[in-house]
């Protein structure tokens, strides 16, 4: 595989862009023409070739730029990365999982050389070549979780499992859909999901927790979540709401296609062997409306999903005020034709 990494920004001049390759492999989250919460989890053990599901930790054209953006967020606000003292072992688990996965899945980009506890890690895209002692934090420039997640796309919640619950006891969170690690640190599964509307009543979280508590070593899982973001902004955090919230009012009928983004999270979960913790990587993919509608099935379907979404969800996801403008734009790409089941584009149906 040969990935050409984009030189782009997720702030200020927003030069972020998706190539045709990135559009075609975008994880479109709607398998039918409407949306409601469900325990939509499946095994994370590969996927169609070239898709974002294929590798354990997907690397794409935005990798280098995303890591640059993360470093800027951390420089401004170190509390985006926190680890309670008992989570160090889980941090080493995560470092090991990512280094082993990436070096096996992308041998041309990453190398891991292990000789007992003496490890050498080579990250070619970021120009890193470090030797260190596994399980000895003093031999790395950061703690193990921070070290490896400064080199891996997506946010990471590191969960401790005890008392039949999961606890948000460590993480690095710089590309989030309006939630705060600093607020959630130390909370359990029900506490940090408390703000989500409708799902509690449907018993979603009780069932989801039961599923997650039983995730086994060697059997990771995944699900998708989504929201809408104005401008290709990774850091939509509560801490910085005063900076980005106002941008929602910059949408006009003329710029909505370029400035309104569908934001999809590929959430995966892996049992961590040495600590018996769970890691919850949350990987953010962004795509503008005008790029979505280049796939006719996606344009039609997104229009119908956004149109029929319950008010509570459109409010919670933060686009209730802009919904009419978004629908005006998308309706031009919905001719009322039937859409095929499933998330994938259907090129043969869409030639005409």
């Amino acid at each position, binding site marked *: 595989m040969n990935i050409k990494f984009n030189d782009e920004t997720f702030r200020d001049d927003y030069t972020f862009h998706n190539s045709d390759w990135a559009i075609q492999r975008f994880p479109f989250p709607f398998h039918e023409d409407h949306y409601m919460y469900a325990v939509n989890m499946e095994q994370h053990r590969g996927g169609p070739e070239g898709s974002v599901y294929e590798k354990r930790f997907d690397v794409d054209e935005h990798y280098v730029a995303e890591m640059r953006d993360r470093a800027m967020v951390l420089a401004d606000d170190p509390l985006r990365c926190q680890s309670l003292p*008992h989570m160090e072992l889980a941090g080493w688990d995560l470092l090991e999982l990512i280094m082993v996965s990436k070096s096996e899945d992308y041998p041309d980009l990453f190398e891991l050389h292990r000789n007992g506890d003496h490890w050498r890690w080579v990250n070619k895209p970021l120009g890193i070549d470090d030797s260190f002692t596994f399980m000895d934090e003093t031999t790395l420039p950061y703690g193990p979780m921070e070290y490896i997640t400064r080199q891996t796309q997506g946010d990471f919640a590191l969960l*401790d499992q005890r008392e039949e619950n999961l606890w948000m006891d460590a993480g690095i969170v710089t590309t989030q859909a309006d939630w705060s690690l600093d607020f959630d640190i130390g909370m359990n599964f029900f506490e940090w999901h408390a703000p989500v509307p409708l799902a509690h009543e449907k018993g979603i979280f009780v069932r989801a927790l039961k599923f997650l508590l039983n995730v*086994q*070593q*060697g059997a990771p899982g995944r699900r998708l979540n989504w929201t809408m973001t104005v401008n290709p902004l990774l850091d939509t955090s509560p801490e910085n709401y005063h900076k980005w919230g106002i941008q929602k009012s910059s949408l006009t009928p003329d710029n909505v296609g370029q400035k309104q983004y569908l934001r999809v999270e590929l959430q995966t979960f892996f049992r961590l062997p*040495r600590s*018996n913790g769970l890691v919850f990587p949350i990987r953010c993919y962004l795509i503008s409306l005008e790029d979505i509608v280049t796939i006719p099935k996606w344009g039609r379907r997104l229009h119908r999903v956004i149109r029929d979404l319950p008010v509570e969800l459109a409010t919670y996801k933060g686009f209730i005020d802009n919904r009419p403008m978004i629908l005006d734009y998308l309706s031009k790409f919905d001719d009322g034709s039937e859409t095929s089941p499933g998330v994938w584009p259907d090129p043969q149906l869409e030639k005409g």
Partner: protein
Amino acid sequence: MSGAEKIAVRVSDIIPLTDLVTRFEFKPINGELLPTFSGGAHTVVEMQDGDTIRRNPYSLMSDPFDQSTYTISVRRDDEGRGGSLFMHTQVSVGDEMTISNPVNLFSLDLRARKHLMIAGGIGITPFLAQIKQLDRAHANWELHYASRNAALGSYVSELTTQHPNDVNIYYDEEKQAIDLDNLLEGQPLGTHLYVCGPKGMINWVRGTADRLGWASEVVHYEEFLAPQPGERFQVELAISNKMIYVGENESLLEAIEAAGVDAPYLCRGGACGQCETNVVSFDGEFLHSDHWLDDDEKASGEKIMPCVSRFNGKTLVLER
């Protein structure tokens, strides 16, 4: 449905330890490394016993960081359904066997300032792995290990030699008993209590801790129930549209698997909840043996844990 890939291993060593307990060592067949695990984890060992595949959980007792070898200890149960007897009499060095990925239902709480461990008999095994894990982290722990007599005290000499200051041994036949009240009263703040052993010991330790005001969050226990033999019964599997019979020495879960129906499981000992199965209809009496379902659920006749529980009566229809 029933989880991750299995691991193919070869029996690399068999070491009789006492009259009842034998240690088995496994090495991977494919030459790759075994997964690391956390202290307290178990693996499910598959045994091809004639026409029956038995799957018994055993605590991993080797160093969790050692990816070359897994070690378990099996206590022979002459009254049981035959899994431990099979291990003792049918398994030889060099045999190929299949085991599951490690699963931990008896995890250390890594926040603890001190780990206080109480073991009875074969219940020592998960602590052997936890001690290796804690020693690597230079953590504070203390073990109190009760055995019937010196001849049956597996790993006593190994433990007392390596950890003379942290291990305390008690032999029932010499009337040595753990002075539990004093032991619990003297613990520093932040201590977590772990107990693994026979049911009576677990109840005694949990009851004493509760009476002395220990919060349930800091008291951890593991009790694997071996499925008990019982009378043969008949079950209809509604989704797979099959009629099956559960033999005297077979569990309901094993009978479902033998019929070619994939059913979820983790612990096979009535503890984890993974195999919980809905009852469509029944005419008869449930013999619930798990400690997953609460009393109301057991009385409702709506759920059964097929790994350990049985049924007595005319008809039982399951949603499987």
